[in-house]
């Protein structure tokens, strides 16, 4: 029998006091809420590779330089019309903002 076993046998009373104290303490504090869903962690794990982010940024810069007049330079263009229409919808509280942000 090794020294540890011997010491444990000699300390039976002490160890059972420690165990019962721990069991009591474990139940003293209520467990925090745990909010888990099947899909959430999967979404969290789906990360965009850094090279995709860099490529997208570069593409944005190139497009921005190549087509500077794509915006609303012409007040009667279709883009401007849509923009004004959307603004009016927002003002009238007639649009789902989260949907709008997603569409942009």
């Amino acid at each position: 029998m090794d020294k540890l076993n011997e010491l444990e046998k000699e300390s039976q009373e002490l160890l059972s006091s420690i165990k019962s104290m721990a069991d009591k303490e474990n139940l003293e504090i209520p467990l925090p809420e745990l909010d888990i869903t099947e899909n959430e962690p999967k979404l969290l794990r789906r990360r965009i590779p850094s090279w995709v982010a860099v490529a997208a940024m570069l593409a944005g810069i190139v497009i921005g330089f190549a087509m500077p007049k794509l915006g609303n330079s012409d007040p009667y263009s279709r883009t401007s019309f849509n923009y004004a229409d959307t603004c009016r919808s927002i003002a009238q509280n007639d649009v789902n903002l989260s949907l709008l942000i997603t569409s942009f």
Partner: protein
Amino acid sequence: MRLTADTFQGLYLEHGPRAQGFFLRMTGYDRELARDLTQDLFMRLWSARDSYDAKRPFRTWMFAIAYNMLKNEYRRRMTVMEYIDNADKEEPVTETDHLEQEQRDQMLRNAIGRLPEPQKVVFLLRYEEELPLSEIARVCDIPEGTVKSRLFSALTAVREYCKNNEI
């Protein structure tokens, strides 16, 4: 076997109080921190559920991650000595019928709180969580012989403290 949300909730209810108690004692009875760590632990376990090996006990996996979190917490927030100092702070003992029991519990808390962190973790896992030596070795990533020698030193120190402060 892949853990489903329902199975995991069951495991949380079964093992959550033990993990929380472990955090409580390892952090010198910081209740808020113990709760936060418990919640964080189970969110991590849930996120890493694909790596769970169902052939091994859930508690070994749980305590291994819990211990890693604690080590990070020690590094991030304060030194181990500060935790030990916290554990030494005597809680006021109220005048109740269980005064003697309360004093005895406080003495045990102090005795365990004084242990160095590597001894304390094996002590708690062995004598409070009743993990076999092989599982403790896996949780702490140390050889079984080291677990035994740490347990021997820890138990000797606790006995000595209790002997010197006997109520």
